[in-house]
């Protein structure tokens, strides 16, 4: 009875995002048959979407073991998975919802055995029978009680100077609302970040967003295609911020719009923007939060630069865009709010360009601004300087107010 009911529930799914699968996953998540959970503890199936870096494998195993029984893994579009059971994988072009449902049903009924743990069943440090009380600890703060050390010794807080315990941990790469692939070593006091160091950089911009711009290098491409790709990219960025401030339904609407733009449908962004404004999206981003200085804005380029008030856009010099009276939109404040407004403005402008010149073609090799900044060298201003002093939810808003290209360039690995 319980099993039959449970089998009909939406599949509770935790997504471990690999490279380049994000757009497909975003489409998948719009299905009402899927419940995406914020933590593996609430999920029954671990969806590994796309290729995971070799260095991410240990993180993936840990996530896997954190799922409660019954649990199963499903690989989607990862070509490494050929030795995996047919029921647990789907090619990248397949829609996996039916397979996922079948797998989940079998998991619940017991036809598919729950997966055993991948990491050894050992505490992080042996503690049984050690120390003064047999729980591994020594004295007040020493030893490894129950397998782990106590938090680090106190250091003065960067906000109010109180010397209290600090908590240092790596975070990522499979954290919800976290730049996919990024691993930071973060030191907290309470919920305020004291320092952050990059352990692994985030994934670079996704292939799907690059397609028209890459194509432009070798052949003439429709302006409409380029601008649609820009609008879709920006909508996805907006969607992330929307769910971060607790508006998941509007976020899903933005995702759906992005998918429809990619599918060459005609959409309007204004209703979404209005709904978001009515819900207090702008108010949710404190003025001045995540403000970057002019030098960093110029180095980052792209929307972040224009959000700082610099009307620099490669499209300004393009004859086709000139004919359409293109002028770059800008903001002035260079904070999270400004970058959000910039994404909205640029997405709306992109769709206006599409409707103004639906058949315009851009010549091969022409210089056209991508949705993000293309200039390659890493900037010398780092996430490590941007995050300290921020409360956790503020830090996440700041991280998600940049596109993945900007994040990649702000998060290079330290030289060993």
């Amino acid at each position, binding site marked *: 009875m319980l099993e039959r009911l449970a089998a009909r529930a939406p599949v509770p799914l935790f997504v*471990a995002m690999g490279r380049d699968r994000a757009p497909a996953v975003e489409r998948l998540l719009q299905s009402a048959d899927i419940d995406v959970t914020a*933590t*593996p*503890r609430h999920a029954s199936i671990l969806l590994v979407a796309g290729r995971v870096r070799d260095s*991410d494998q240990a*993180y*993936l*195993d*840990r*996530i896997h*073991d*954190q799922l*409660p*029984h019954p649990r199963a893994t499903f690989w989607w579009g990862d070509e490494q998975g050929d030795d995996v059971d047919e029921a647990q994988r789907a090619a990248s072009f397949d829609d996996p919802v039916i397979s996922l449902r079948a797998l989940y049903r079998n998991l619940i009924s017991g036809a598919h055995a*729950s997966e055993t*743990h*991948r*990491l*050894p*069943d*050992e*505490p*992080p440090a042996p503690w049984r029978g050690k120390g003064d009380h047999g729980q591994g600890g020594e004295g007040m703060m020493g030893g490894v*009680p*129950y*397998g*782990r*050390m*106590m*938090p*680090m010794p*106190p250091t003065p*807080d960067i*906000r*109010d100077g*109180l010397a*209290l*315990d*600090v*908590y*240092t*941990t*790596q*975070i*990522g*790469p*499979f*954290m*919800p609302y*976290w730049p996919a692939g990024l*691993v930071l070593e973060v030191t907290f*006091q*309470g*919920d*305020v970040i004291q320092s952050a160091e990059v352990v692994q950089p985030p994934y670079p911009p996704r292939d799907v967003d690059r397609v028209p711009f890459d194509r432009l290098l070798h052949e003439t491409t429709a302006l409409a295609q380029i601008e649609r790709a820009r609008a879709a990219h920006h909508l996805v960025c907006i969607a992330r911020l929307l769910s971060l401030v607790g508006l998941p339904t509007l976020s899903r609407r933005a995702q759906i719009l992005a998918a429809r733009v990619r599918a060459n449908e005609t959409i309007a962004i204004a209703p979404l923007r209005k709904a978001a404004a009515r819900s207090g999206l702008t108010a949710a981003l404190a003025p001045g939060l995540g403000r970057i200085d002019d030098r960093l804005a110029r180095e980052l380029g792209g929307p972040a630069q224009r959000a700082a008030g610099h009307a620099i856009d490669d499209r300004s010099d393009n004859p086709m865009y000139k004919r359409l009276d293109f002028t770059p939109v800008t903001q002035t404040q260079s904070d999270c709010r400004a970058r959000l407004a910039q994404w909205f403005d640029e997405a709306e402008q992109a769709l206006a360009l599409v409707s103004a010149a639906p058949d315009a073609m851009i010549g091969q090799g022409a210089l056209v601004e991508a949705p993000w900044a293309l200039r390659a060298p890493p900037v010398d201003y780092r996430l490590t300087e941007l995050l300290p002093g921020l*409360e956790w939810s503020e830090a996440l808003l700041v991280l998600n107010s940049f596109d993945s290209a900007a994040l990649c360039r702000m998060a290079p690995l330290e030289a060993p």
Partner: protein
Amino acid sequence: MALTGLFTIMGTIVAGALLLQWVAARARRDRVVESQKIPFLGGSAPQTHAWQRFHVRYYSMTLLFIAFEMEMMFMYPWAVVYVAEGVKALAEMGMFLAILTVGILYGWREGIFRWQ
């Protein structure tokens, strides 16, 4: 007696909720292995226990709050006799609100309603 009612419903719900947790745990007997117990941090493992001398960012606010709340506890009995006492009670309320307003204004000026 009013307490009987409160305890009957509290006891029923708490007992039911604990029973449900216990029965469900007995129905599934898979052991929680060590690697499963690692706190969730997006796949990473922490270096230390999370229990720490947690830096509360609103400590001044809590102290103001306690005094504020104590002041407000006087208002419950006051509310019962308000209509009977009339203008005297109204003046009393002015006094209350004045004190509380000064407290809020002072705290606000000193910036204690923000994360320290």
